[in-house]
């Protein structure tokens, strides 16, 4: 885990003190709301429907026990005892008081965290594959590069006032667990002909009102040139991005209007002008960062008799192993997914007590590491196979062992209109109703992989465009309705979903999902996932099941 150096510590402390003064000036009336709003947003503090919301950055979704405990402490002390993990691997606290915000930032600084650049037209918190450093299918630990990007992009003066917000995701694995194709810049590590590591660079992906999958503008960028190339992309965007129209200001619009080839040409020309050595990370600094991402694994046998015996005796553990435990690159270890998707509860929500439980487990069983996945689940990345039964038992006791990773009840839902000032409709109750219908783990297992993603407005924080079933809340004359899309994916087989038909009222959505699942179970051929069946049959049978007149 990367530790702050003296520079990191100093600027976070400065920023915290500065914000304290700004809050005091706002409360006294010295600053107007118009003057203060951009300042609080630069520190991730929004005003929402019921209170202020603080969005805390979790760089590349990596936490230590100490950090997670601190988040739990803040939630318990300054909020209502819970927090909400987001699709950007951040944590949102929804009941914050403005007068408490400076104290909270001080608590965060104590554990090397902050909330800078979680809002505003800046380079936002960088995300990465949550299995980084643990999965066998990666070429390198992408967090080394994500940390380099974090250092480069934090308070970067040239990119503090971009045309619009800007998000970067990094993966080094074949399986895309970082949704890189829906990011402003998606970076996927590749190995070059000579064995050199580099990145495929995708630019201009994004969801929202105008969804795009990011086209590749460079098949192979030598990794050592990452920062100078990012700088060239940002410079082209900063110069030509549409500042005149908020709906056209994201880089995806620029890339789409120019065409990927022309955009790439302009980036290459900009890059050719630059002094790469001045921007690219020196090998010594890269080595310093890398040293912080080198866990000390023990040499263990690849099979654990303890685990095999426990599995044979415990059906719940066996089911948990099938869905929540994944292979690790190091023999004798496993990646354990912690589901925050108990059917009937709020996707991504976690109580302070649960944060303490996972922090304790991380410290004792997972080399002091926890990860946040954009699917709004947590991960204990380095658990010894021998320890999996104990970890499972302790997770189960805390309500954290739902065996449903990637199943129908593992639903992404944004906070929606229950909290968010931008939303048009609620997302959480829709997720709850659907998950409750599939709460029986045997039934969910029979349905298999099915990714439902729900957004409460077109901004698409719930990634509905790339859900196998996507659900978008809309407002019709003051009432909630929901548009359904099918066939989306945010992974290596990325696709944007296709509209099913007219919007459904709230009380019909779960029923419609059940009808579509019935169609899938009827139509599926050997081994097909819901997405595969949809891609083979098209929308027609699903549409007919949901909308067909009985006459």
């Amino acid at each position, binding site marked *: 885990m990367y530790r702050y150096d003296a520079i990191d510590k100093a600027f976070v402390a400065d920023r915290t003190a500065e914000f304290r003064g700004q809050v005091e000036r*706002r*409360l*006294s*009336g010295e600053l*107007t*709301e118009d003057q203060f709003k951009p300042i609080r947003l630069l520190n991730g503090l929004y*005003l*929402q*429907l*019921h*209170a*202020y919301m603080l969005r805390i950055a979790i760089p590349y979704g990596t936490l230590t026990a100490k950090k997670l405990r601190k988040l739990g402490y803040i939630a318990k002390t300054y909020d*209502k005892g819970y927090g909400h993990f987001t699709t950007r691997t951040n944590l949102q606290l*929804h*009941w*914050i*008081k*403005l*007068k408490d915000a400076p104290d909270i930032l001080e608590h965060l600084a104590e554990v090397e965290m902050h909330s800078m650049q979680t809002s505003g037209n800046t380079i936002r918190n960088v995300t990465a594959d949550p299995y980084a450093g643990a999965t066998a299918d990666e070429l390198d630990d992408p967090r080394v590069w994500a940390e380099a990007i974090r250092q480069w992009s934090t308070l970067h003066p040239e990119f503090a006032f971009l045309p619009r917000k800007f998000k970067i995701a990094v993966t080094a694995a074949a399986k895309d667990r970082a949704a890189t194709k829906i990011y402003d810049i998606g970076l996927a590590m590749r190995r070059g002909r000579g064995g050199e590591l580099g990145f495929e660079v995708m630019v201009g992906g994004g969801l929202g009102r105008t969804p795009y999958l990011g086209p590749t503008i460079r098949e192979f960028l030598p990794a050592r040139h990452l920062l100078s190339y990012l700088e060239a992309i940002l410079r082209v965007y900063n110069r030509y991005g549409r500042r005149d129209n908020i709906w056209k200001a994201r880089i995806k619009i620029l890339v789409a209007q120019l065409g990927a080839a022309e955009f790439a040409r302009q980036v290459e020309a900009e890059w050719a002008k630059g002094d790469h050595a001045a921007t690219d990370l020196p090998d010594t600094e890269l080595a310093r960062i890398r040293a912080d991402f080198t866990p000390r694994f023990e040499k263990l046998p690849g099979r654990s008799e303890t685990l095999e015996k426990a599995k044979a005796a415990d059906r719940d553990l066996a089911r948990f192993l099938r869905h929540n435990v994944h292979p690790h690159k190091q023999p004798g270890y496993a990646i354990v997914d912690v589901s925050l998707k108990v059917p009937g509860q*709020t996707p991504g*929500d976690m109580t302070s007590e649960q944060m303490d439980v996972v922090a304790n487990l991380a410290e004792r069983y997972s080399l002091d590491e926890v990860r946040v996945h954009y699917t709004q689940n947590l991960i204990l990345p380095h658990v010894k196979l021998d320890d999996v039964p104990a970890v499972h038992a302790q997770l189960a006791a805390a309500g954290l062992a739902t065996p449903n990773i990637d199943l129908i009840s593992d639903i992404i839902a944004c906070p929606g*209109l*229950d*909290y968010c000032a931008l*939303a*048009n*409709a*609620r997302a*959480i*109750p829709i997720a*709850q109703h659907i998950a409750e219908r599939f709460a029986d783990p045997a039934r969910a297992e029979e349905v298999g992989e099915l990714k439902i993603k729900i957004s409460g407005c077109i901004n698409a924080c719930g990634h509905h465009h790339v859900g196998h079933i996507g659900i978008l809340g809309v*407002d*019709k*004359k*003051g*009432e*909630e*309705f929901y548009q359904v899309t099918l066939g989306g994916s945010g992974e290596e087989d990325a696709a944007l979903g296709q509209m099913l*038909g*007219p*919007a*459904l*009222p709230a*009380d*019909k959505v779960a029923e*419609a999902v059940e009808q579509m699942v019935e169609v899938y179970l009827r139509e599926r051929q050997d081994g097909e996932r819901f997405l595969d069946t949809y891609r083979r049959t098209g929308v027609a049978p699903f*549409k*007919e099941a*949901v*909308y*067909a*007149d*009985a*006459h």
Partner: protein
Amino acid sequence: MKALTGNLLQDGETVFWRDGQWVPRFADAQLFDDDPTAEAAEAHAKSELTIVVDPYLIDLVESEGRWAPLSFRERIRCLGPSNHPQHGKQALGGADIDALKHAHGAARSTGRVNLIKRK
């Protein structure tokens, strides 16, 4: 009919205007049946920089014999998040809260399901 609402600067709580004061319950809000009076109250509220952030007028609709905010968004603000019934103003309980929970906006349709004919 309209009401004036905003969020308190200090803690963000949703509040409603009543005769120059801010009150926490929608049921206690002053109702404006003419625009000039409502707009005058809004202008006054906006001049108080340290009390409420961004006050604004909301449209009301008659629902089951009571006035309720037209938009679902505003009804959620009056109640609190539906995933945590113990949080927000809904925790106060009472007939006014129950009425808001059952209120409807202008859209009464149950949607257009069952309207597409089989080909």
